């Protein structure tokens, strides 16, 4: 399966033509990780958005971490993401630092990494692509929020 075919399996590019997805695919590259690898770390600068081509990652946030206190921060898992899912999209929108740590769960997890700046420039130069990508990012963030709300309701715990 080509990179374009893989990317078209992701909601992020829903509504774009094959030619438009090829334009986006040309901006990035495939990267592979092994179980336990940290792909992005909370608080770090953000340069890329990731699409999961295969495998699974886990999203974690630190709780109660104080910068002046030594020792590792306590990490809380938010969700696992599998094939077709996207992460790093918040940084694409707000250009802030990473809001969570993302760790590889399965050996050989394949991601497609797209540089934020290049994608942003493409969205600026082609407003149709820009509109569709931003709409899809909003839909993805909404889905993740619904998932979190349902999880909170069912487990009766903290998100």
């Amino acid at each position, binding site marked *: 399966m080509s990179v374009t075919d893989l990317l078209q399996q992701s909601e992020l590019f829903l509504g774009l033509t094959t030619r438009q997805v090829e334009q986006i695919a040309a901006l990035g590259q495939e990267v592979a990780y092994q179980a336990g690898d940290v792909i992005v770390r909370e608080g770090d600068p953000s340069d890329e958005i990731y699409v999961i081509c295969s495998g699974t990652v*886990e999203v974690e946030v630190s709780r109660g971490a104080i910068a002046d206190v030594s020792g590792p921060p306590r990490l809380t898992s938010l969700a*696992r993401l599998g094939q077709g899912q996207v992460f790093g999209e918040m940084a694409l929108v707000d250009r802030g630092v990473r809001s969570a740590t993302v760790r590889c*769960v399965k050996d050989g997890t394949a991601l497609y990494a797209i540089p934020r700046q290049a994608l942003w420039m493409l969205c600026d130069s082609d407003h149709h692509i820009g509109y569709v990508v931003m709409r899809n990012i909003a839909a993805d963030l909404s889905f993740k929020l619904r998932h979190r709300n349902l999880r909170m309701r069912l487990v009766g715990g903290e998100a």
Partner: protein
Amino acid sequence: MIYKVSYVVIGKPHLGEIVNLEAPPRVGDRVQVGGEPCEVIEVIDLIPPRENFAYLHVTCRPVQEKK
């Protein structure tokens, strides 16, 4: 059709999972969620479908695998 599925495991502080599938989960299916064996007990349409994407929410309960 691509099924974007939100999995939640009932009764435990489980992280849940979001994944795209080629076929929809069905009640009674055995699945792995967060690396743990579970049984699907409910499948609902979370939001209306869009183009070739359907959006499902699946509630599971943990099960013990036979040794």
